[in-house]
């Protein structure tokens, strides 16, 4: 059991990405649905709506990216593993 920290780190990385992807996925679905709704009601506002949608999606995506960065830190730059 000398690799216990590494094993736990791999599981931690997997959990970080999987659960970190859940919330942003749901949120992005809601955002796109709302944007579709707005586009159907007001097709002439397509430019503003899609621009705001892109910015909003990237902001929501950031939380998933944080989880990815944490996972990659655990895998590649783990501070608890002696290199």
């Amino acid at each position, binding site marked *: 059991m000398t690799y216990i920290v590494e094993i736990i780190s791999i599981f931690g990385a997997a959990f970080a990405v999987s659960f970190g992807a859940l919330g942003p996925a749901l949120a992005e679905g809601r955002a796109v649905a709302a944007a579709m709704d707005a586009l159907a*009601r*007001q097709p002439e506002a397509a430019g503003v709506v899609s621009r705001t949608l892109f910015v909003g999606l*990237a902001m929501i995506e950031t939380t998933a*990216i*944080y989880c990815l960065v944490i996972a*990659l830190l655990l895998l*590649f730059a783990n501070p608890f593993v002696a290199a």
Partner: protein
Amino acid sequence: MNGSPFDQDIVFQLGPVVVTDVVVTTWFIMIVMVMGSMWLTHSLNFRPDKKQAVLEMTVSIIDVQIRDTMQTPPARYRALIGSIFLFILFANWSSLLPGVDPPTATLETDAALALIVLVATMGHGIRTRGWLGYLKTFTEPTWVMIPINVFEQFTRTFSMIIRLFGNVMSGVFIISIVLSLAGLLIPIPLMALDLLTGTVQAYIFAVLSMVFIGAAIAESDSANNTTNDKPTAVKPLTSAASINTNDSSNK
């Protein structure tokens, strides 16, 4: 790209200074951008030719974005925001060249860009309000919020760093994984997606810088309300739209 996304290849060493491939790419992009700007602007005419038309279109697009987001005349902020946007765009797209890692896929480049934005935010805030006026914005709702407001300056800078780094790095990382699994044509759709992500991230970084600088200078501009005719122009449109939706729901 070697194994870890957190360390870089060393190209050569100048005495004690280690020069990585990212630094070389950054300087190359800087040279290309400076030479390109000089070539585009060295013979400006009153009657524009093709390349001047493209240049004017680019500058006016950046101007419109600054005016829409910050509600101020864009001349003072055009250089900073435009350079940030174009540099990040070129840096993100440089991953298309074979063997080149985008500089924005490393923490150091992103940290430098975000620190430039942080310093510019403070500088423009101090310039428009003065030292005391700028420090007073940290006590904005009440004085109890001072630690949180100071903390926010650093967390949002950190968030900008991680956002740009994570997005660009994950794109490069995924492409290298796919490339090691399946060879020839499979990574091309992912690289196309990378182009879109790179554009959106450059845009978002520029928009966030505009929002932060705009928030730092906002109060003094709302005092003399000169350019702020936009909300009144928008208002009738939205009220008409709400009337329309009410009608359709009543039917």
